[in-house]
């Protein structure tokens, strides 16, 4: 074989290898632009202003619909459809300047009239907005010009800008509002495409979006209620990720390089709620005894597979106003027994605990029952489903104890309502909250929020257990998901694939 032939042969081999390699890099890892995401619950409807189901926000919040403001991953208020605003010195008049060139997904333009329409719909007498009470502070909403809206409050409100960023205050168009339940039309980066009831729901990138366009071209939500089925769907690659799944399934994914586990916090304070009006829970010593009898570490381990931050009051640990009060009544069964004796119950007492159908409550109730039994409090566990819980416990207040996560952001104010199902009537606490609501100065608000947390902790109004974790599992090649959940929703704007 001549040298020339060898060189030619070598060249052919090299070219062939290069070609194969080039082909592989071109086609071996094609960049994906679609996402299949698992959801535990299917939304009943898709209008975020007409229902409280969190599954609605999981799909549409900040994806399909936008509000005047929006809440970011850290719980802070950011501009959205209102790109800037001015607040009058008396904190009563908010002037919002709206984004330009905004269109709804059906092509109609967005202007101040849509904002006026959306807000008046929340405030109307026949409104069925689940959070109507939050917006009761609004006195009037007027369009100054197509790009400017003026909202007048009847009293200063420190949380109005936050509330304007909730899914419940999404801006809808009068033309499409009646059909938003089944075919939502918003201004967001994703538009609604298709909903196969019971199976899946598809969104696609809205190319006419006024802001930064979404990286994903198509998003499919797959509804998988069963925990084992969710795990299998992830393992088999039928879905690329899930926003929040059973903490018990995380060890499977933590060891698997194909997945990444994102554990963050939510706004859900898991509490052992007590009927403060019903003896013996009306006695401070009894409530303190229960607080001393609860071992939070053990409860978190059993009810949430060890994920979750212990709390000592009704406040989210990631909030800038948070103060750690878990040491107010540390775990101390002997002290608990002494306090019960002081309250005239040396032999303890019997009570029932109503348990809603969620793992943290079902598992938590068993641990709490055994912990309270150690100090002489015998619990009967009664399983209830959600409608029963809402009817008996929440609406009628007919219960001794229950376990529940309160998932509303910044909801410490519920303790100021003596008719709320805790039946906690404390003028001192009510004074703190009404002052807090009327204060807009940051430093003063923080001080008041801390005072409110301390008061609840000291009064042992409820057993404060832990902050519900958000446990997401995603394909390892996905980036841009929110780790925390400062508000209900699965915001996909920044989600993208990497190589």
């Amino acid at each position: 074989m001549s040298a020339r032939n060898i060189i030619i042969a070598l060249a052919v081999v090299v070219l062939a290898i290069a070609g194969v390699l080039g082909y592989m890099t071109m086609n071996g890892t094609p960049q994906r632009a679609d996402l299949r995401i698992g959801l535990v619950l299917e939304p009943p409807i898709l209008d975020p202003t007409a229902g409280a189901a969190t599954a609605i926000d999981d799909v549409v919040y900040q994806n399909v619909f936008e509000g005047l403001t929006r809440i970011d991953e850290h719980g802070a208020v950011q501009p959205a459809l209102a790109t800037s605003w001015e607040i009058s010195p008396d904190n009563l008049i908010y002037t919002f300047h709206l984004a330009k060139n905004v269109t709804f997904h059906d092509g109609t333009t967005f202007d101040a009239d849509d904002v006026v329409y959306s807000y008046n719909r929340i405030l109307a007498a026949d409104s069925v907005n689940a959070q109507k009470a939050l917006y009761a502070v609004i006195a009037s909403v007027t369009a100054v010009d197509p790009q400017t809206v003026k909202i007048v409050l009847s009293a200063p409100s420190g949380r109005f800008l936050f509330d304007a960023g909730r899914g419940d205050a999404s801006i809808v168009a009068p033309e499409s509002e009646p059909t938003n339940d089944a075919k939502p039309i918003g201004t967001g980066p994703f538009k609604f495409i298709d909903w196969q009831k019971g199976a899946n729901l598809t969104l696609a990138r809205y190319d006419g979006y006024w802001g930064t366009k979404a990286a994903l071209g198509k998003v499919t939500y797959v509804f998988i209620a069963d925990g084992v089925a969710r795990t299998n769907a992830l393992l088999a690659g039928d879905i690329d990720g899930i926003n929040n799944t059973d903490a018990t399934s995380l060890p499977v994914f933590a060891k698997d390089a194909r997945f990444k586990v994102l554990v963050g916090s939510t706004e859900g304070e898991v509490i052992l709620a007590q009927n403060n009006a019903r003896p013996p829970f009306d006695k401070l010593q009894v409530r303190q005894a229960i607080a001393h009898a609860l071992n939070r570490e053990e409860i978190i381990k059993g009810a949430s597979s060890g994920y979750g931050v212990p709390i000592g009051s009704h406040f989210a640990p990631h909030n800038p106003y948070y103060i750690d009060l878990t040491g107010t009544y540390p775990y101390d069964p002997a002290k608990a027994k002494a306090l019960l004796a002081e309250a005239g119950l040396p032999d303890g007492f019997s009570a029932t605990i109503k348990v809603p159908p969620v793992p943290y409550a079902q598992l938590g109730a068993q641990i709490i029952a055994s912990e309270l039994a150690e100090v002489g409090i015998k619990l009967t566990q009664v399983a209830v489903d959600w409608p029963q819980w809402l009817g008996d416990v929440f609406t009628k207040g007919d219960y001794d104890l229950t376990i529940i996560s309160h998932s509303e952001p910044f909801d410490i104010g519920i303790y100021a309502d003596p008719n709320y199902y805790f039946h906690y009537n404390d003028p001192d606490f009510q004074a703190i909250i009404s002052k807090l609501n009327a204060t807009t100065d940051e430093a003063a608000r923080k001080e008041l929020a801390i005072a409110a947390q301390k008061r609840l902790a000291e009064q042992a109004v409820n057993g404060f257990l832990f902050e519900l974790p958000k446990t997401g599992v995603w394909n390892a090649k996905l980036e841009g998901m929110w780790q925390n959940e400062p508000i209900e929703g699965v915001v996909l704007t920044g989600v993208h694939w990497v190589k």
Partner: protein
Amino acid sequence: MIWFAVRKFFGFAVTFVVAALVIFAALDLLPGDPARFILGINATPETVAALQHQLGLDLPFWQRFLRWLGGMLVGDFGTSYAQNQPVGALIAGRLAVTLPLTFLAMVLSMLIGLPIGILAARRRGSLADTGLMVLAQFGVAVPNFWFGMLLVLLFSVTLHWLPPGGFIPWGDNPAGALNSLVLPSIALALPQAAILARVMRTALVDVQGSDFIRAARARGLTMSEAVWQHGVRNALLPVLTILGLQFAFLVAGTVIVENVFYLPGLGRLIFDAISARDLVLVRGAIIILVLAVTGTMFLTDLLYGWADPRLRARDAA
């Protein structure tokens, strides 16, 4: 035969009407308010009242009942509280999954169960018979959801042959739709096939010892010819009874299997609707199931009449 059919139809109609009454009354007694469920814990009582009015929940019992009954006569099952959609359309969409699933499972269970039963009966006492019946016993004992999970682990997670769940609509891709029903229908069919095999075996063993088989043998037929020409049809009677009952079991079984394979079927619709106190939807779905089950019983009765002339004769007398 016509008189026989009319009598059976009358029984079917009465059952259906009584069931409708019971369903409405029982669901009305369930605790929990659909309006409160939709609006959640932060809604004010006024907002809840506004929604109750919008949903017609503030009307008295008898008025709501008559509305429902009257609507059903013209095919209107009402509007779902939670989903704000006509119940009839919601249910029809789910039947497109549940009916093919049930049908496939039924066919599969017959294809697997009947030959095994016949084979075991023909080889009674043999090693094959014992082996098959042990297998059948195992099949009866295995819960379908657990078997379904095993199927997913093997065929989806490990081998990637079939989807772990979900459903592709028939209109989009019929092959894909069928693909997504393969594992669930196998999971549903296995326990039923086991029961069928056992019933078929017992029935055929009984028949093999009967006088008419001996008579057929005396006419010169071989045992196989006698069994195939005369025995199997006679042995089918108890099998038909079981098949009719199994339809009801299959429909109930879909609730669990649809959860394991996250299929958008009727079982899951009912499960979710009960959790959300979407009573209009629950009522509509249950009534349709009642219709399906009583309808199948009615058809089974007719088939009986066809398979066994004695029944017709007794009725005519």
